[in-house]
């Protein structure tokens, strides 16, 4: 069973479109994250949620809107896609908030978004 699963794995779309990426974790974790990995492999946090509550929103354009219907799911919706949004987006989860002695992050396999 996949611990952190995200769909779709690949997404190719035109500029200006709206798209969503879904993430689910079956680890019973309280905290979930979205990270963006650029072409140079740099991983940067975008959002984190703890028990459905937004904890971190790291200067991400408001075209990006996370939604957490329950603590096992964290979806990412992107409006008006731009070329610069092309990247690999990783969902991750942890037992609790980072910094609270709750252990490591578990990552999904990534969703590669290509904006044409």
């Amino acid at each position, binding site marked *: 069973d996949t611990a*952190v699963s995200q769909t779709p794995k690949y997404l190719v779309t035109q500029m200006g479109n709206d798209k969503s990426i879904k993430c689910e974790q079956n680890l019973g974790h309280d905290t979930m*994250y979205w*990270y963006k990995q650029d072409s*140079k*492999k*740099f*991983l*940067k*946090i975008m959002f*984190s949620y703890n028990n459905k509550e937004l*904890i*971190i929103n790291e200067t991400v354009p408001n075209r990006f809107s996370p939604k957490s219907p329950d603590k096992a799911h964290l979806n990412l919706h992107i409006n008006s896609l731009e070329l610069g949004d092309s990247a690999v987006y*990783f969902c*991750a989860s942890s037992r609790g*908030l*980072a*910094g*609270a*002695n709750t*252990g*490591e*992050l*578990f*990552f*999904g*396999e*990534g969703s590669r978004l290509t904006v044409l």
Partner: protein
Amino acid sequence: GESVGLHLPTLSVQEGDNSIINCAYSNSASDYFIWYKQESGKGPQFIIDIRSNMDKRQGQRVTVLLNKTVKHLSLQIAATQPGDSAVYFCAVEDRTGNQFYFGTGTSLTVIP
């Protein structure tokens, strides 16, 4: 915030040799550190972690060393194998920011 850097963006080693990947961090209050391995087309996977009350921790073929004085972290891989070829990241926990900061990654290539 945290600044995390790696000394070498790429590293090539002969199969069977030992590999050392380095990481520098800036926040002296950081107390939890993780090494991740990311294979092509996959998400980062946990390799080994260490807390600030330790200087060294060993796993299977991997050792993490922590030098808090100079804020430096290293990952040693013994008897490197082709399957070790991947990008390796250090991650540093930021207690106040409730997040992990990731280094820029080192791409390890193992030459058969």
